[in-house]
């Protein structure tokens, strides 16, 4: 598969330390398109090895708007079922640039290990220097070790190492959409995490038309009024759950976006530095970045101050545990009590739909109605399809809920332009049905 792809699937057996590569066949792309379509296929192919499969969408890392995401597919220690967690920030893109479209991780390592994936090279490395360290220290250690300030990581903290319930994989320093306890799955494999860096380029079959159509679609996207808004508080308000605006405003420092995503879904909260500071702060740990709408809503409802909410989010990001699970399942209502409950969570968080996609993502449209009637069952079915489509093409999953201009039709059009394959609605329908089955 020459286009929009690195052409390679990486198969890592942690038990034997054998690293193999398989070619990403055009026939597989023709059948499963990409992203979650292929990660599920690979999961099933290697199911006996209890794999964790990491991958990118077909359009990930291109000029298609919001083509930012990757996907983790594995059996959830929380639900016991196959589940898919989006890879956000700029980590998803870096996976593709580091030289592999898909990574299958089989078996368990004899001793704590991490994977260093760079420019088409995959190294299984001894994690002795980071096992036992929290997510922040681990990421910082690896960035310093390889001399790269832009290194992207998928990392577990002490929660994952201890295989605590709701241990979360984190991205770089931050909490992720993982509501499935994938941190526990990593810990069970003695896998501390993955570090990615690459300077690869992606080939495109028809570059001029691909870029030109991408820009036309981006122009249509920019007609949306909601793009004048920014940040997580606006998302919470838009879905009608809770108005976080005034609560968060005193500690909101800035908002940022995932790769090539027109809406800034990430909000930086400063608890230990003046949020109005413009120059680079000299405080080592001024605050936290968050994308977790429902964790913030739960913290506010539980009576947390915004500062304490930020501090708890920071603590969960370091420890590598799902912050929503902490606040909902611990029954605690103070920062100290919650922090002490990280390793003793029990119970279940509510799932959405069939429970295969992360409930981190609101199960309804945001800012636009997408022509839905407002009935819950309709919304859930729509949401599940929309998450599947976003996962197949690598679209930022929150932005996919905001923007009707990112249509299945034009994703297929761009995929066909980029690959020269005839990818049509019938193929997409079949892949969505396969993923949602």
């Amino acid at each position, binding site marked *: 598969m020459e286009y929009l792809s690195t052409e390679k699937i990486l198969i890592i057996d942690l038990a034997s330390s054998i690293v193999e590569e398989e070619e990403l066949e055009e026939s597989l792309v023709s059948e499963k398109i990409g992203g979650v379509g292929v990660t599920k296929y690979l999961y099933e192919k290697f199911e006996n090895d209890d794999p964790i499969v990491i991958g990118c969408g077909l359009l990930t890392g291109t000029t298609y708007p919001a083509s930012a995401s990757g996907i983790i597919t594995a059996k959830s220690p929380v639900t016991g079922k196959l589940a898919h967690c989006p890879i956000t920030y700029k980590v998803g893109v870096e996976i593709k640039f580091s030289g592999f479209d898909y990574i299958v991780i089989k078996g368990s390592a004899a001793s704590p290990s991490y994977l260093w994936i*760079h*420019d*088409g*090279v995959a*190294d299984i490395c001894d994690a002795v220097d980071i096992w036992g360290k929290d997510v922040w220290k681990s990421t910082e250690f690896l960035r*310093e*070790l*390889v*001399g*790269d*300030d*832009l290194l992207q990581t998928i990392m577990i903290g002490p929660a994952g190492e201890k295989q605590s319930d709701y241990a979360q994989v984190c991205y770089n320093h931050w909490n992720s959409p993982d509501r499935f306890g994938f941190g526990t799955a990593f810990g069970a494999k003695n896998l501390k995490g993955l570090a990615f*860096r690459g*300077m690869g380029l992606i080939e495109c079959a028809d570059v001029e038309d691909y870029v030109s159509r991408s820009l036309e679609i981006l122009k249509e996207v920019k007609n949306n009024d909601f793009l004048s808004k920014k940040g997580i508080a606006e998302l919470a308000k838009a879905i009608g759950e809770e108005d976080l605006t005034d609560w968060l405003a005193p500690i909101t420092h800035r908002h940022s976006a995932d790769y090539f995503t027109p809406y800034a879904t990430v909000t930086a909260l400063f608890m230990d530095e003046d949020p109005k500071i413009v120059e680079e702060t000299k405080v080592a740990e001024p605050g936290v970045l968050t994308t977790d709408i429902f964790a913030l809503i739960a913290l506010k409802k539980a009576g947390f101050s915004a500062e304490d909410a930020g501090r708890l989010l920071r603590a969960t990001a370091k420890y590598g545990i799902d912050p929503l699970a902490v606040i909902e399942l611990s029954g605690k209502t103070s920062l100290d009590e919650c922090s002490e409950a990280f390793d003793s969570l029990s119970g279940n968080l509510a799932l959405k739909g069939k429970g295969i996609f992360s409930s981190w993502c609101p199960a309804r449209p945001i800012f636009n109605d997408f022509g839905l009637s407002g009935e819950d069952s309709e919304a859930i079915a729509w949401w599940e399809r929309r998450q599947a489509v976003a996962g197949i093409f690598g679209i930022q999953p929150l932005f996919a809920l905001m923007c009707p201009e990112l249509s299945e039709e034009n994703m297929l059009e761009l995929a066909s332009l980029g690959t020269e394959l005839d990818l049509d609605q019938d193929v997409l329908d079949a892949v969505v049905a396969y993923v949602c089955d």
Partner: protein
Amino acid sequence: MSLRLLCLCWAGSLMTTTKSISKIGIYAGSGTSHSWLWFVDLFENNGLHNLSFLNESNVQKGLDDLDVLVISGGDTFAVAESLGASGADSIYKFVHRGGLYIGSCAGAYLPMNSSKKPLDLFNFVDVKITNLSKVLPATVKNSFKFCTSYGCGFIFHPIREEVSLKFSNNALPFCPLTFNAPLYGGPGMTVTDPSLVLATYNSFTTNTSFLVSEALAGEILLEKAAVVRVPVGKGLFYLFGPHLEHPKFPIANQFVSDVINWENRRSKNFGSSVPISDKSITPFRKLSGMTKKTFVMDIKRELSNSRIVALNLEFLPLRWMIGKKIYEPEKIRVFLESMWSRIKFLERIDRLHIFSNDMETIKTTSISLTQGLRKLKRAVDENQDSLAEATEIFSQLKQLSMAFYTMYFLTLTHKG
């Protein structure tokens, strides 16, 4: 690394002849910058694959098995210092017995008559420098690359980047009328015999960057020699002020290739290099299967590790003065990307041809290069001086590149 002869299968271009194909030695030892890599690209693109990569020791031992010696850019004083009297003697004998010397930029300054030590060891051609002054003129920008002290005076650089060259009417038959090439510190030249001048600096272009006033730059360079061809003994010195080998100037590149082929065809003395006897040729290894795959993956791993750190260094305000030459972090990746761009070829082919000592050099140097770059980055992050680390890194980059390219061209010439 010893000087070695690489066998050749050349499928000729413009100047195909039945004579044996030129054996080209590229000096990549102390004092050179990165521009010798441009010659590597140029020769590869033009089917001139019979290449050796020389350090100062190789030159000092003699150049009997070469037809062409190339010395490109860098620090002329450092090159002269490293080659020393025995290196100078080798070059003198090489040209006198019929060898073709191609000097670009620093390599052009080297054989010019000079009273300054150690340049006076290389007084081979009576060519004068026009950009030499006892009093330094005012610079308008880019002052850190503006001049080099030269005894009581200065070599100064009136412009950088692109300049237009005009060929003389009596120049070689294949010469274009005009073409452009970049000047990065090379000389403007005058000679007493105008027939030695092949090309002059003709005009500046919209891409010319002036370091002095345009009027003064014109006075120093325009109508002065940019390319000279000086017969000495049975051989020739070709001196290029601008970098005709720069990869963004294909017409200039073609000229260089055509010069070699043309001189090869017409000279009785070309091809008079002494073949290395079978016994003196270092035997090479053939790597295939998993051994080859693992070895290439090891190179790829360390090149990747190194280029990742090197890219990070480019975001930092760094610059090192090594010898008389300023080096920026960007130059590190020129070496690395040059090798990296050939990795896919090495992955694709079934068999690698490599000398055992090069295999060891590549393995150990690539690992220590990664470690050195990471150490340098840590030093910079901690606001420590990094000159010693940078000096070592540039030395290792040359060492690694020489071994890598020896392997690469050995493999290329044995490929079919």
